[in-house]
């Protein structure tokens, strides 16, 4: 038979008691320190601020230069607005050395009336000029032959900053964003485009290049893709324009 097959589980009861006491102590520590307490959130009170009638403090109150206590006096209310006085034409001096005489009371009223009359005349002239210019512009638009200013729809496409050039520039810029690729640090390519009267691209010529083949290929790709969106140039003429392609964008030459 075995002498001692199993030893007793002595000490487990003591361990259990110790563990229970330890948990109890931990529970009280945690409870009294408030670690496990549910957060007591309180909604902040809502303040309504009337931004229209917001009171404005006196600007000098509490400023670094002047202490607030020194300017305790209530600011004076602003003076009531006064009626604007019309300019008065000063009468020329009658003669050197002659004693200055006060103008008669009726002279002031006369000068004011003259001024009002002149002002009305000026307004009438300005209105007439404005109407004449608008009429001229309408006539030019209807005829379609007038030479518009730079950037106007009636441009021929040859003026600097003309509308057609800007349109082509915009189309190129749109496509260039999707095709741009380069390997050198700061590549640039100058291309001169010639667009036929029917809007087709007649030719493009690389006038100057920084030597980045990948960038050149992306520029050519841009032109090829953008070509499909080119409209015919205005006035039935060929259009020719140089463009500077850089990673930062396209510029007109």
């Amino acid at each position, binding site marked *: *038979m*075995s*002498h*001692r*097959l*199993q*030893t007793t*589980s002595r*000490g*487990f009861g003591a*361990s*259990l008691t*110790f*563990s*229970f006491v*330890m*948990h109890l102590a931990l529970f009280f520590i945690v*409870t009294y320190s408030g670690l*496990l*307490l*549910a*957060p*007591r*959130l*309180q*909604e902040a009170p809502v303040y309504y601020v009337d931004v229209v009638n917001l009171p404005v403090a006196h600007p000098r109150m509490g400023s670094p230069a002047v202490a607030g206590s020194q300017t305790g006096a209530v600011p004076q209310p602003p003076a009531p607005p006064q009626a604007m006085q019309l300019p008065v034409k000063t009468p020329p001096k009658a003669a050197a050395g002659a004693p200055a005489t006060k103008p008669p009371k009726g002279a002031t009223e006369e000068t004011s009336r003259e001024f009002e009359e002149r002002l009305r005349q000026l307004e009438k002239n300005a209105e007439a000029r404005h109407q004449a210019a608008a009429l001229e512009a309408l006539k030019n638009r209807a005829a379609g032959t007038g030479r518009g200013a730079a950037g106007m729809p009636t441009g021929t496409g040859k003026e600097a900053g003309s509308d057609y050039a800007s349109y082509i520039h915009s189309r190129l810029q749109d496509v260039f964003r999707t095709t741009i690729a380069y390997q050198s640090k700061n590549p640039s390519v100058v291309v001169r485009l010639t667009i036929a009267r029917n809007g087709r691209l007649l030719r493009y010529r690389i006038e100057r290049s920084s030597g980045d083949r990948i960038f050149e290929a992306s520029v050519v790709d841009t032109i090829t893709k953008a070509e499909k969106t080119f409209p015919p140039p205005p006035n039935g003429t060929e259009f020719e324009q140089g463009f500077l392609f850089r990673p930062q964008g396209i510029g007109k030459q």
Partner: protein
Amino acid sequence: MTFFAGTGLVVKLVLLILLYFSVVSWAIIFYKLLQVHRANSESERFLEFFWKTKRFDAINAQVDRFTNSPLTVLFSEGYGELKKLMDKGEQKEEPDVISTELGGIDNISRALRRATTSEITRLEKYTTFLATTGSTAPFIGLFGTVWGIMTAFKGIGETGSASLAVVAPGIAEALIATAIGLVAAIPAVMGYNHFQHKIRVLIGEMDSFSTEFLNIVQRSFAKK
């Protein structure tokens, strides 16, 4: 106390279960730490005494000094079986010789194996509770959390207000269950792994001692 008063019945139950798991787990951890420490230290001392002392009867007389060592159990079992075989030999007028024909060495080997198994059982006692706590406590905590959040949302639905002041306390109370589940599970898993390692080392020592004991018996007592 305010926190526990605010929770629902199910969450309270979950927290109590987790508390029970935690208390018992820590009790087992303390108990096993003491047991394994004593087993290791007394085994070292017993082995030293065993190799110093040449006589088995002298060792058997002193074995009570090392009651916490599993090796003393093995020695007692082996020595008891050896003594029985020797008593049998004396009856056949062949003192100090055990017969291999009767399977004397095998008997001792079986006795040692049985003692080893019983000691492994004793050492591994309660560790299964640690494994159970490690694997189930997080889920129990999660259940409490899910239930608490369900209750919180129900309360939100009833009050009709979804402001932070209404939602946050309920969810915080619910999440405590998961936190306590993890607090119970983490030490249990760590303790279980630690004790498994220590028990494996002790099993290795017991196997080595059994082999050495059988060698000594075969060298000294077996019939040529």
